[in-house]
């Protein structure tokens, strides 16, 4: 952190460095998202439990009124949800439980938390739709606790002026429900390069910076500017800085506008440029763009908002809507990839000590084959109903037997092309044998980095180990690409690393044949490819593999790339 000057004689300009995860720049006032409230450790018992009970119930009533006020401003769907949630806050059985826990000598916030826990346990035991309501219950508890403790209400506060959202971290659901027209940018204190906030922000085209020191302490309303490419955030920025940012953005836009059409290297080797999408809305936006199709359709985001396991008809309708904009273009669908970081109420195998290494992806599909079967049937029906070139791949495949098991099911449902994600190092190292069972492979570089480096994606502190430029990760990618070549099968990349123009060149140099990324990153990668021959890409790949660490790899590739591209980065 450094103070570089005073902007208008009042506010002090300050520059802070975070990690840019979604490109673009933004300038606007800060809206602070308050973290969920936990009861204080060893909270003191109230002197007068009866009075404390009245106060706690008053807090629930306050929460209910707040929810009702918000429901009046919400659209139809949100209104019903908010009204039902307000009713829970007014529930007399819930209030009785709080009173009971207060009578047993618990502090007010602790009593509220215990009462919420009681009902949450009942709902979790019921599973399905009810387990999903646990999120609402916890939100009510958190809000009521905030009120009794005199703290700000958790979550995104209502705001009407376009703003930059600052938070400790954002839950996937929170990010997904943000109003794109009001959110200029996102800044978090935690999170990492491949956290879900980063992925969703890039997908929504919202500039974002993660790991910004002190992000949650910047007062609401402070004007800030952020650069989602460099990770720089400026508090009370000098008008000149804001202008420079805008000029650089315009220069980039002009250069990017000059290239269009299918991706290829300068010497004409085709590299398909594809979009990563998470639902029908994304599909519609991506479908209107200059790109060759979808390289990753994450189906679990379609399930996340569902109240129960979606039926065959419901899924067919959703997939048809997703496929419709891609008539004649490819759509690579990843089957349900639920895990403990993206839990689904109806596909929950219980708590796991280590969810990233647990029963997720294809492992979940093998434990609940009926879920996969319905999904494949729906995908086949939607593929028949639309003109899209639908290809289906499984997440978290580790063995040849798993690849075979999946391919059999895909083909039995009349879907022509089966593939696997290459994100487990074992599958990357044996890609020739694994890919022999299927029609294509797709490197999920985010998870591949996590598993290769043994570093949790959700652990912001480990961001450096998760850097996709880690030469160790590039070695594993190189091995996978060599195997794919032996098997004669195409291998794409659908991790966020495909969207980094320099790294995309390295991936192509290693033998990757398609790149799938957030739509907002495609033009930068198209330009990078257009300015390099395949042979040049191979030299860049060799330079990256020869480096000692990520910084070295990045610097070596930057130094050897065309000046034409580097000037725009």
């Amino acid at each position: 952190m450094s103070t570089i000057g005073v902007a208008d004689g009042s506010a002090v300009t300050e520059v802070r460095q975070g990690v840019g995860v979604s490109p673009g720049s933004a300038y606007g006032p800060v809206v602070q998202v308050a973290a969920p409230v936990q009861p204080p450790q060893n909270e003191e018992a109230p002197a007068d439990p009866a009075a404390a009970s009245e106060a706690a119930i008053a807090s629930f009533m306050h929460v209910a009124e707040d929810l009702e006020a918000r429901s009046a401003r919400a659209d139809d769907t949100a209104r019903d949800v908010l009204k039902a949630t307000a009713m829970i806050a007014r529930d007399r059985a819930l209030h009785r439980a709080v009173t009971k826990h207060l009578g047993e000598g618990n502090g007010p916030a602790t009593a509220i938390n215990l009462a919420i826990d009681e009902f949450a346990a009942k709902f979790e035991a019921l599973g399905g739709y009810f387990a999903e309501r646990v999120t609402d219950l916890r939100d009510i508890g958190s809000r009521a606790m905030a009120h009794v403790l005199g703290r700000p209400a958790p979550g995104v506060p209502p705001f009407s002026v376009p703003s930059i959202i600052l938070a400790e971290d954002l839950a996937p659901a929170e990010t997904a429900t943000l109003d794109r027209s009001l959110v200029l940018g996102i800044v978090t204190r935690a999170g990492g390069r491949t956290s879900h906030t980063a992925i969703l922000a890039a997908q929504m085209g919202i500039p974002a910076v993660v790991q910004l020191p002190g992000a949650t302490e910047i007062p609401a309303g402070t004007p800030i500017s952020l650069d989602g490419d460099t990770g720089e955030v400026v508090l009370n920025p000098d008008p000149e800085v804001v202008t420079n940012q805008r000029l650089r953005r315009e220069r980039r836009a002009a250069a990017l506008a000059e290239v269009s059409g299918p991706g290829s290297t300068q010497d004409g080797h085709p590299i398909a440029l594809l979009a990563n999408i998470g639902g029908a809305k994304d599909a519609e936006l991506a479908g209107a763009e200059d790109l060759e199709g979808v390289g990753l359709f994450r189906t679990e985001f379609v399930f996340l908002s569902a109240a129960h396991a979606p039926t065959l008809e419901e899924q067919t309708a959703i997939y048809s809507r997703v496929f419709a904009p891609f008539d004649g273009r490819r759509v690579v669908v990843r089957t349900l990839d639920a895990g403990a970081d993206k839990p689904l109420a109806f596909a929950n195998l219980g708590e796991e000590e280590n969810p990233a290494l647990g029963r997720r992806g294809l492992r979940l599909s093998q434990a609940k084959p009926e879920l996969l079967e319905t999904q494949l049937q729906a995908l086949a029906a939607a593929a028949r109903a639309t003109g899209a070139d639908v290809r289906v791949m499984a997440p978290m495949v580790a063995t040849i037997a798993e690849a075979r098991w999946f391919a059999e099911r895909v083909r039995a449902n009349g879907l022509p092309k089966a593939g696997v994600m290459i994100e487990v190092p074992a599958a990357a190292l044996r890609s020739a044998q694994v890919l022999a069972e299927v029609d294509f492979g797709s490197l999920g570089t985010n998870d591949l980095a996590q598993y290769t480096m043994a570093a949790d994606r959700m652990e912001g502190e480990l961001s450096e180990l998760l850097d996709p430029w880690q030469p160790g990760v590039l070695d594993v990618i190189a091995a996978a690409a060599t195997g794919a070549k032996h098997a004669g099968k195409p291998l794409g990349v659908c991790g966020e690393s495909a969207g980094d123009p320099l790294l995309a060149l390295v991936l192509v140099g290693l033998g990757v044949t398609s790149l799938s990324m957030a739509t907002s990153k495609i033009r930068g990668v198209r330009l990078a490819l257009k300015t390099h021959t395949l042979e040049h890409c191979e030299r860049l790949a060799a330079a990256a593999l020869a480096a000692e660490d990520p910084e070295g790899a990045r610097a070596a590739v930057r130094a050897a790339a065309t000046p034409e591209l580097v000037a725009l980065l």
Partner: protein
Amino acid sequence: MATRTATIASSIGLHSRPAAIFVEAVEDSGLEVEIGRVGEPTVDAGSILGVMALGARNGEVVELTAEGPDAEAVLDRLVALLNSDLDAE
């Protein structure tokens, strides 16, 4: 004490919107109404959490009990509610 049985007609079962409509009707009656599966422990029908935690699905039979001057009439109204698809509106 008045007692009635009803069959849950809402396609999604007695939760979310159907549960909210039912609990509101119970509150409006001003009576203490209990709901449960026949022969099983009952819950306060005026508690949305209690009613939802019952987990009554479409086609299940539940029993309502109430006490008070117009208990019979109140239960008739509540049974009619449960016997219609409250999610269809």
